[in-house]
């Protein structure tokens, strides 16, 4: 693979430096900062399906919740050391999420368009309701992950760096996937699935793979967030369809779906806005968020980078044909 030019490495380097130094510079905001990286992973993994493949899922939160529950169950029931149990749990969570994705993938991914959107919405909520009735995982009361063994306040720092690391790994993996044959295939599915299939692409296999990649990272992130929050509620934290589940869609759309950097940008802007709402509009923050969703979707359906790409297509590496009148002269 060709290495990117030094100029293109500037922005990632700045982001990396910011991410590494942030907890030192602003220690009281570690929790919120950790959630910034969580949000970026949410938006990136949603965009893999929604933006690049054209399958708009409302149910990706399912994998997040599955990963979270699996991780905490491993931490609770296998009597290992804290870190061993945590990392084993994250791995189990990711594997379980991928398995779930592969199992339901062939059924749900055959649905197109809005049927897929509503079907995934249903499966995300059904999972939350099932979890809140299942006593093995604490039922409606939820679960509490084991106590962090380190110093007071060490927990936030540790999970901050863990979620940061996950975001840092997710981005290049997706970038690598988009750059190759896989990226072309899923873009072809987005543009015209019937034609892609007629050209000999095994569309179901590609779609399921894409869903499993998304599920893998969300499953890992579930384990991290479960421990970061310190309390797992089936409907409000793990399978939070009406918060995280919608936000991941919204962030990708705000930044510009189908672009590489769009979800990152959208997640950052959305997260800051959301935290401001929580600080200054306490009590009405959720109303303001609902309003924000409507405004973004109705007025900026193409998103920031989508708008920029339309404005300056040549900067996004698209060849622009000269107008015919100039070419003829």
């Amino acid at each position, binding site marked *: 693979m060709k290495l990117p030019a030094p100029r293109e490495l500037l922005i990632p380097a700045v982001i990396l430096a910011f991410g590494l130094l942030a907890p030192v510079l602003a220690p009281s905001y570690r929790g919120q900062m950790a959630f910034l990286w969580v949000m970026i992973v949410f938006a990136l993994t949603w965009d893999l399906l929604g933006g690049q493949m054209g399958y708009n899922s*409302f149910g990706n939160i399912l994998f997040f919740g599955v990963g979270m529950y699996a991780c905490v169950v491993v931490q609770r029931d296998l009597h290992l050391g804290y870190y061993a149990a945590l990392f084993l749990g994250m791995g189990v969570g990711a594997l379980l999420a991928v398995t779930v994705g592969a199992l339901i993938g062939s059924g749900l991914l055959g649905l197109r368009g809005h049927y897929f959107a509503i079907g995934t919405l249903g499966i995300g909520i059904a999972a939350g309701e099932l979890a809140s009735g299942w006593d093995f995982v604490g039922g409606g009361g939820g679960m509490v992950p084991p106590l962090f063994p380190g110093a007071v306040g060490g927990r936030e720092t540790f999970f901050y760096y863990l979620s940061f690391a996950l975001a840092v790994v997710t981005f290049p993996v997706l970038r690598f996937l988009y750059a190759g044959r896989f990226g072309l295939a899923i873009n072809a599915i987005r543009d015209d699935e019937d034609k892609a299939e007629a050209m000999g692409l095994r569309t179901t296999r590609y779609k399921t793979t894409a869903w499993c990649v998304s599920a893998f990272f969300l499953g890992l992130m579930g384990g991290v967030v479960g421990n970061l929050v310190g309390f797992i509620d089936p409907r409000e934290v793990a399978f939070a369809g009406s918060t995280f589940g919608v936000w991941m869609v919204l962030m990708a759309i705000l930044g510009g779906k189908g672009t590489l950097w769009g979800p990152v940008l959208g997640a950052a802007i959305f997260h800051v806005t959301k935290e401001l709402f929580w600080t200054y509009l306490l009590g009405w923050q959720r*109303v303001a968020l609902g309003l924000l*969703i409507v405004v973004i979707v109705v007025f900026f359906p193409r998103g920031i980078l989508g708008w920029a790409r339309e404005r300056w297509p040549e900067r996004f590496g698209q060849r622009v044909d000269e107008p015919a009148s100039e070419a003829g002269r």
Partner: protein
Amino acid sequence: MENLRLLFAAPSLSLQLLLDGVLIGAIFALAAYGMALVWGVMGLINVAQGELVMLGGYAAYFLYRAGIHPLLGVPVAAILLFILGWALYRVVVFRVVDKDLFISILATYGLSILLQQLANGLFGANVRTAESGFGTLVLLDGAVTISEIKLVAFAAALLAGAALIVFLKRSRMGQAIRATSQNARAARVMGIDTDRVYAWTFGLNAAICGASGALVAMTWIVHPYLGLPYTVRSFMIVILAGLGNVFGVLAAALGLGVAENFAGFVLGAEYQAAFIFGLLVVILVWRRFSLARQRRYLT
């Protein structure tokens, strides 16, 4: 599974569940018919459907608090919700009508969250109900009981649905709505103001949801978070029945009411919501596989 055995031991219990299910089903049918109307005419799936039901319920509740009998509250709730639906169309919905379907789903999902949180902020999260003061009918020597309000609500739901259908068949605006649903472009060429038709359609949908919500507030309870299950039920009923099939909608709604009642009894009330959403996924996947055999897919 304890309850399943109970069900076989006492057949009258099955009859009870069946009756309750049928009586609930008519109320589901109202919201579902509204969804089918908006979907068929405007090509838009309204995810805020359940929130309109919820607001209709609150309208009936506050009218009841003001001393108006809930049954009289039903038409008032319908009129109030018609105005709200009209306003929602004029402010938000008209911008997404001719857009990509996903954008309209997401926009109405945003509306649903907005309305739900507004209701939570304004009315509080408490569970409310509008007492109608009806008694209970006892049949078969006390083996089966029906609260009269459910019967009244069933009749009122059928009446409201019939009124909407007559409006669509007979009135000038109803004709315009049906023409637009057949071919919006041709309707525009023939001089129909389709924008006005869409506003009416969305308003009528809101009104029918409002009536159904008022019946819900009389028969059961209303709270700010009851919306999404109603949306999902409506969606399920519509994909089972198809667009523009009134008797299909009614049959599917009654069937869903019965199925839900039995599931709630057998699995326990805490799994009833899981059953609704799970059933949605099962129905969608079943439809997808049965169509895939003919190399077709749901459109």
